[in-house]
């Protein structure tokens, strides 16, 4: 039976990860729509979303046929690698070691690239613009697809996690349609930090279960793991921010 402690982390991870990725894709689609018209932008986006939805619908049920222990181990390891990679990058960004994601700069770069393409190949512009939107949505959406499948596989959570991702898409597109400019005020790094925490917690939980560990408290252990990863991320970020002490002889 589906319980809140089982579904909430999966749906939350899918929702917040999707917000991060959809904001990034939206910036490029907005550049395409603003510069080359909304027809190629809409066509490219719709084609990409259809491809990603097909990937979820094909891969999701297929994974349910894999033996549960093997599935938990493989997905757990992938989640650990993916989640810790996000958490590492978000910690470094929070510490100011690497720059924050700049949606305005990405919008300007994409606009310049499309402008350059316009000068070179006038006749195929709609095609190029449509493909630009398609590529942006597919590349950003791949991560969403992985997260939705990974947090739901083998637990019957494909629909709730998929709906969480879809809700994020609708939310970002609705806000984007209203403000009609890159969504620079979305706290992307904070969201990425949070999602990295959740995915790392899922990773440890599933990898352990795949190896035969019976975690005390079952799904509730996820919240403990998440709290520990949050603490570790904050400590790592604080340490990275600290200036190096130099010894002068």
């Amino acid at each position, binding site marked *: 039976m589906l319980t809140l402690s089982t579904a909430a982390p999966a749906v939350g991870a899918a929702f917040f990860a999707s917000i991060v990725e959809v904001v990034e894709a939206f910036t490029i689609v907005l550049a395409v729509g603003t510069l080359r018209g909304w027809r190629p932008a809409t066509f490219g986006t719709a084609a990409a979303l259809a491809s990603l939805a097909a990937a979820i619908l094909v891969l999701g049920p297929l994974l349910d046929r894999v033996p549960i222990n093997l599935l938990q181990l493989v997905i757990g390891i992938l989640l650990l690698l993916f989640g*810790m990679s996000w958490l590492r990058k978000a*910690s470094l960004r929070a510490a100011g070691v690497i720059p924050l994601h700049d949606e305005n700069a990405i919008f300007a770069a994409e606009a310049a690239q499309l402008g350059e393409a316009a000068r070179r190949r006038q006749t195929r512009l709609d095609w190029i613009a449509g493909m630009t939107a398609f590529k942006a949505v597919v590349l950003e959406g791949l991560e969403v697809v992985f997260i939705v499948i990974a947090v739901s596989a083998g637990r019957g959570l494909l629909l709730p996690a998929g709906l969480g991702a879809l809700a994020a898409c609708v939310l970002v597109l609705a806000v984007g349609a209203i403000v009609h400019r890159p969504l620079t005020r979305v706290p992307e790094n904070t969201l990425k930090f949070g999602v990295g925490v959740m995915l790392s917690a899922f990773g440890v939980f599933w990898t352990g279960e795949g190896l035969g560990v019976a975690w005390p408290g079952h799904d509730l252990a996820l919240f403990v793991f998440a709290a520990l990863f949050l603490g570790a991320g904050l400590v790592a970020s604080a340490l990275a921010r600290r200036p190096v002490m130099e010894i002068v002889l």
Partner: protein
Amino acid sequence: MTMLKEIFAELIGMFVGDARLTLAVLAIVAGVSALIKIAGIDPLGAGGILLVGCLGLLVENVYRSARSGLRP
């Protein structure tokens, strides 16, 4: 063809943000697996090692990356 390459690169990049971190995580998982399957230690204890190992790896990797002036 170019797009397929980009999609493939994106897929690889999803799991290998930092090669050293990736290898270290895989080494911890392999070590914990060996402790359970070969050494026969209590799985819950091995699970604790997995958790603490991953937390330690994260802190060490972020700290080392910052100190070495890493740009991703």
